[in-house]
């Protein structure tokens, strides 16, 4: 097995009496799509927030690309190649789609103590930003205000912004949240297109999508990993069947 890109070792986090992450050890390999599934309250978003640095774990360690990043501030992690997206669309609503992505490019184009040249005409920012919009299929909406985009488009923009930081591992928090079937299908198509170019840690409720794109799946229940394996192994796993997956989901 290749050296994992991301590992957590005995990660733990609780809020008061509620255990959100419980002794979790998990590996994501380079260029792997690793899905994390589990019922509501299983601690999936809490896990992403710890990996992205917004929450500090109570115990345990996180390693990324051979480096212990457990205590690294959130804003430093994207510079190592670890970027997250948000379940609730988190964009700059009063800026255009292109500006949103340009800002993400800017975050990785050196410091921003540049006080004179207009950023809106800076090809160094705009070219990569347009490229990221093209990747997610949003190039024709570049100049539309982010707030005026349709929900599905905002979700695509969310991904484009994360891609523009050139991650090695993208933490995707429910990219299909609130999407209709058509939009979901487009997102699955996008993930399949991107698959193999970078690694994903994908948290998602849409089982069709998860089983379509994931290389491996980890099942979380009450913050604890009850199973990790290839999709067909997870489907056949008796614990998972009892703890989480309904019969109809397994018929996928």
């Amino acid at each position, binding site marked *: 097995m290749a050296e994992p890109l991301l590992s957590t070792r005995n990660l733990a986090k609780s809020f008061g009496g509620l255990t959100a992450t419980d002794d979790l050890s998990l590996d994501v390999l380079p260029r792997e799509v690793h899905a994390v599934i589990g019922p509501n309250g299983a601690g999936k978003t809490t896990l992403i927030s710890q990996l*992205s640095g*917004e929450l500090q774990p109570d115990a345990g360690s996180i390693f990324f690309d051979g480096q212990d990043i457990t205590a690294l*501030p*959130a*804003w*430093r*992690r*994207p*510079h190592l190649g670890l*970027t*997250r997206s*948000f379940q609730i669309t*988190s*964009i*700059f*609503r*009063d*800026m*255009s789609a292109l*500006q949103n992505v*340009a*800002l*993400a490019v*800017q*975050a*990785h184009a050196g410091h*921003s*103590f*540049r*006080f*004179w*040249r*207009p*950023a*809106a005409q*800076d090809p160094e*920012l705009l070219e990569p930003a347009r490229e990221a919009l093209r990747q997610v299929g949003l190039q024709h909406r570049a*100049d*539309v*205000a*982010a*707030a*005026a985009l349709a929900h599905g488009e905002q979700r695509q923009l969310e991904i484009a*912004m994360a891609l523009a*930081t050139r991650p090695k591992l993208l933490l995707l928090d429910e990219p299909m949240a609130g999407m209709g079937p058509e939009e979901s299908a487009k997102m699955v198509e996008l993930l399949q297109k991107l698959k193999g170019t970078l690694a994903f840690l994908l948290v998602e409720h849409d089982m069709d999508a998860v089983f379509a794109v994931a290389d491996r799946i980890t099942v979380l229940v009450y913050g604890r990993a009850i199973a990790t394996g290839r999709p067909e192994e997870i489907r056949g796993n008796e614990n998972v069947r009892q703890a989480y997956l309904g019969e109809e989901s397994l018929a996928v």
Partner: protein
Amino acid sequence: MRVDLRLLLILLVVACLALLPVAALLAEEPYWMRFWSRIMILGLAAAGLNLILGFGGLVSFGHAMYVAIGAYTVGALRHHGVEGGLPDILVALGASAGVGLLIGAICLRTSGIFFIMITLAFAQMTYFFFVSLEQYGGDDGMRIASGTQLGPLHLDDTLTLYYSAFLLLCGVIFLTWRLVNARFGMVIRGARSNEQRMAALGIPVFRYRLTAYVISAMICALAGVLLANLTLYISPAYTHWTRSGELLIMVILGGLGTLFGPVIGAIVLLQLEDLLAHITQHWQLFLGPILILVVLFARGGLLGLLAPRQVSQRPAEEIDG
């Protein structure tokens, strides 16, 4: 083609300000120049505040403190026998930058209502600090013997002061325009819109906000130097919280995050004050409701009222108004 009413108004205001001294001299009303100098000086301070309030989304309730620091610099230097103009400006810029760096570094650890309260607290501390400075007149304040002199320019001369304030105001607005559209400004505006996302993209927001805070403090200190030249007097009242409140009102009244909003706000507020004060002693009673109406019905301030009707599809592309 639509005529941009905002642009028209701004051009008109700039032209009027440029020509006002001519009218004042012809009408033999030098008081006009002093009154409008005051408006531009406070407009300058409001423009400084606008950088972090309008573009950065940080409600500082203590920016009069930096105006006072600028004014006290002139008073203190003259008191200790330092003549000449360059020290006034350099010390004012240096002192406001230093104080701004220190206070900003503390205040910017907080956000929202806490930021408002802590900036207010620091301004109040500064107020009592100036009150306790007996050698500078304490509570009563102090007369300044002479103004700032830069070579042949005597800033305490009415006409010189007027055009200094005018040019400095234009310069600061131009600087702000470059600043907010450059990469630095994109970070500041992005952080106003969505701070969490900025960190998730890998941008350390704090250091950029602190820089913006220091720049805005320095602009206010420059306004303070001019104010000292206008009044030839310093007083702790310069840093009273009502002064900070006035600056806030100017920015909000004129239009948050617009380049000329603070100037429009300063003109309207001070004119209203003047006008209402002529009519009634209780002018504040009437000023209040007017401000409330503006806030309720003109969310983008007075400049926002004149903006071309925005289709929701149009992004806030470049700051131009």
